């Protein structure tokens, strides 16, 4: 992975740690003791991580020392950002579908749509898998566990 991207990620986490530390100081009384302690430790670790990602002698030394290997951290395989965003999108679609339409409607539609559109699977296989997954949830939760499956915001009064 490009060093720039790694530095960006480390810096982002450092920003998060600084934000947490600032919020920690706003807590009243004893409730802030441990969060502030953890916040300072996190900031220290994140600074080390940012330095470790830089292509400097100090960065290489810290990376090697803290990874336990004289050859530094291993490179990881590159992945397409658009594919990653698509995968996040499908999880969020499933989540939103469940909330709005409930499990009994959202699950078959999500499984079918994911398999046909994202996985390029045949329609029949996708349809059967979608029905099978929904049937499994219905049998396991509603039939066997006698648990009423969530019907979604749209159908909750039905």
């Amino acid at each position: 992975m490009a060093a720039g991207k790694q530095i960006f990620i480390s810096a982002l986490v450092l920003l998060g740690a600084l934000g947490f530390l600032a919020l920690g100081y706003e807590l009243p009384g004893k409730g802030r003791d441990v969060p502030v302690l953890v916040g300072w430790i996190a900031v220290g670790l994140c600074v080390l991580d940012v330095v470790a990602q830089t292509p400097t002698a100090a960065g290489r030394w810290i990376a090697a020392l803290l990874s336990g290997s004289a050859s530094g951290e291993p490179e990881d395989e590159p992945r397409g950002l658009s594919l990653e965003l698509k995968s996040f999108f499908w999880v969020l679609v499933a989540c939103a579908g469940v909330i709005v339409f409930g499990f009994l409607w959202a699950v078959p539609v999500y499984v079918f749509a994911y398999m046909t559109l994202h996985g390029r699977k045949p329609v029949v296989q996708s349809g059967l898998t979608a029905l099978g997954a929904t049937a499994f949830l219905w049998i396991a939760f509603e039939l066997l566990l006698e648990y009423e499956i969530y019907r979604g915001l749209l159908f909750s009064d039905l």
Partner: protein
Amino acid sequence: MFDPLIDGLVMILHWKGMTMLALGVLVGLVFGAIPGLGGSTAIALFIPLTFDMKPEEAMALAGGIMGAVSFGGSITAVLLNTPGTAPSAATCFDGYPMAQQGRAGAAIGAAGAASSVGGIIGVLLLVAVIPIAKGVILAFGPPEFFMLAILGLAAIAASTGGMFLRGLIAGALGLVLAFVGYDSVSGGERFMFGIDYFWDGIPLVPTLIGLFAVGEMINLSISGGTVARTRELDMKVSGAWEGVVATFREWAVVVRGSALGAFIGAIPGVGGTVAGFLAYTTAMHSSKDPESFGKGNIVGVIAPEASNNAKDGGALLPTLAFGIPGSAEMAVFLGLLILHGLEPGPLLLIEHEATIMSLIVSLTISCIIATVIGLLFTRWLSLVTMVDVHVLVPVVVAVAFMGSFALHNKVGDVILTAAFGIVGYLMIRFRYPRVTLVIALVLGELAERSFHQAMNMTGGGWSIFFTRGISLGIFVLIVVALMIPALRFVLDRRRRAAAAGGRS
């Protein structure tokens, strides 16, 4: 010593208990066979199903899963050279060459028998150590528990290979998450941003399901293809009995591997992978024919398999006795205990001994049942890994959301699961170990409570952490754990320098 064990056995020998055990074994074998899933995902997904169960039935399910996962992983290690779980990696060295020589059945038979015997030895060692552990726990006060929580985090971060620094950062993130919600010390709310859902803190189970099940599914979805990444499965699987006989003939290897596995399993963070490799190399160095290792020596299958299953018994000790989970699987299992009102820590072994024994009995029985079922359905289990990820991913995500919601009937849990699914994937992607985050989330409350109690004991002085024998001893272990990557670096540099010197 044996009365609680008998009580536990009685609890399990009920049709419901046995059904849950059998279900757990099946789930464990399948999830163990599929690389990337494993025991933590299996338990995380099945926790919600146990909501209405009695604790001992839930223990039976968890025991079944934990006892069967490693054998499931070994089957694919032997047949496909693809370890289903990381601890089964050492089994590939000799298991796969045996399969290529037409002795797949013998390798799987040996793996199954060694797993069973190793699992039983591990559990027996656990049962033997529990009475001693109960005495030790009573000597622990708040400073010791605070130090122990920090040790758990440090040891796990140190064991994450080249991810030590990011392991510690992930641990800090886990602690940050543990601070969210109502704070019993100050009596106020922390980091809730006006969202009432967070009043009781970040719920553990939806977080676990998101990080492990959904996160792993996003990762698989991006990788694509089949899980095992191979289409090779045209070998015969017969002659398992030869492997079983060989295991009992090599009883010394089994006992040694099991003892190693149980000991290493009890050290937080070190885990089954190290145990498996250590058992393998020990068996190789003590063999009269070390050259045959890696070329299909059955002892090379027996040793890591015995240690693999024995480690579960060892790993349960810090989890149950101190509430310090030593691995991701144990952290998820801790979530199951908490769900059933079994607060891990000093009083668990004293107040709920029979329930814990039912878990131990389940683990023992599951080791045997897993071997029998695994041997009967070896070929089918291998085929599971041929499932296309684009079929597996949407189904597991749907089940994950359903399970997450079913726990408390909260839509917020589904949103949290999705959010932590993405966080889990990003952690895989950018090499922040998820296990340290989870363990910190679990230990955060214990660490903070113990810290304040210890401070109250001295009126605000830090000296209490360093003036009590056990606390100081644990502090020394923390320093050692934090030094491990640096020591590894020095040794690695010396080895490279020696190798370069040898070449020139």
